[in-house]
């Protein structure tokens, strides 16, 4: 299992390829969205809805032996791409590793500044939900 930092570094090397080409970076995020998978309808409910996202999005979680497994669905192309990226980073990771992770490290990717203020708020809402699930997982309540 790769660590959160290892996955971030892999993505960083991908984003670095595009240097200062913002459009190429965004296109790469859209490309990632092609791998995006929908959630089963029964997992799309109030409990999994990410409040504060720019477009409707859901995040469901399971906890297996202290490892958090995340599944999500976004509705806009941007959300699908970002969710794919963020699920690669945070899913299948020990809850403790997620709780220890400093979200400022996401800035290394060089894409956060490309997000509009509304999208940045969506990211914040996503992270809060991930931390909440990680906490429940660690406490054996998930």
């Amino acid at each position, binding site marked *: 299992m790769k660590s959160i930092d290892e996955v971030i570094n892999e993505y960083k090397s991908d984003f670095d*390829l*595009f240097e200062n080409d913002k459009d190429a970076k965004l296109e*790469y995020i859209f*490309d*990632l969205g092609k791998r995006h998978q929908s959630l089963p309808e029964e997992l799309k409910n109030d409990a999994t809805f990410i409040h504060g996202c720019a477009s409707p999005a859901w995040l469901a979680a399971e906890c297996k032996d202290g490892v958090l497994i995340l599944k999500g669905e976004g509705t806009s192309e941007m959300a699908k791409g970002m969710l794919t990226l963020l699920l690669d980073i945070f899913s299948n990771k020990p809850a403790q590793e997620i709780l220890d992770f400093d979200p400022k490290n996401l800035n290394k990717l060089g894409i956060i500044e490309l997000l509009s203020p509304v999208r940045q708020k969506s990211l914040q809402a996503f992270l809060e939900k991930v931390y909440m699930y990680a906490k429940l997982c660690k406490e054996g309540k998930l």
Partner: protein
Amino acid sequence: MSKILEIKNLKAKIGNKEILKGLNLDLEEGKVHAIMGPNGAGKSTLSKAIVGHFDVEVTDGEILYKGKNIVDWEPEERALEGIFLSFQHPVEIPGVNNAYFLRTAVNAKRKHEGKEELNAAEFLRKMRSLANELGLKPELLNRSLNEGFSGGEKKRNEVLQMMMLEPNLVILDEIDSGLDIDALRAVSEGINKMKDGKRSFLVITHYSRILDYIKPDYIHVLKDGKIVKTAGAELVKELEEKGYSEFEEK
């Protein structure tokens, strides 16, 4: 040895002029075939007929690619099935980004083959690495396709397309024209790297120089719309010494 291409009694015209006059040619899988011949013999017409170029009208005969007659196939269907032509005179397309163009083509082919598309990063990494091997300046990758490229840059870009698309049948129409010795070497090395014992090559050329780098298995002489002689690589030397005069109509 299985045949990748069988051309039977092919007749084709451009406008009202008949150029190919009952041409027969077999290409073996994994082999390098060279077509040599004088100006106006029909070499470029043959390459255009194989890829389905709109300039050329096939009036009779068959082109069997992997056993299927492709004469009525659209050019894009032939490309998706693995036929690639490097143009003698690559066209400039202002406004179409070189990298985007190639990525679209590569991913269309991958999709056709049931493979996952390359994302922008995977594509860029591969393209830059191959461009570097070919000595193609990185800034050309983000310019409009062939616009303002030198002759050598255009040909290197054609070989880059070939390497990225990984075709089964590669047709190189005078890839050597307009190349200096360094460019010729870089282009030839790129082509030689693509030889894998399965991929077939049809090298169309006026001159034997490129055949010093890309060793052919067979030489075919094309004259007045027909293949008039087929032999091994030793024929190159003979043609160099005697020219095409022995094939003149008496």
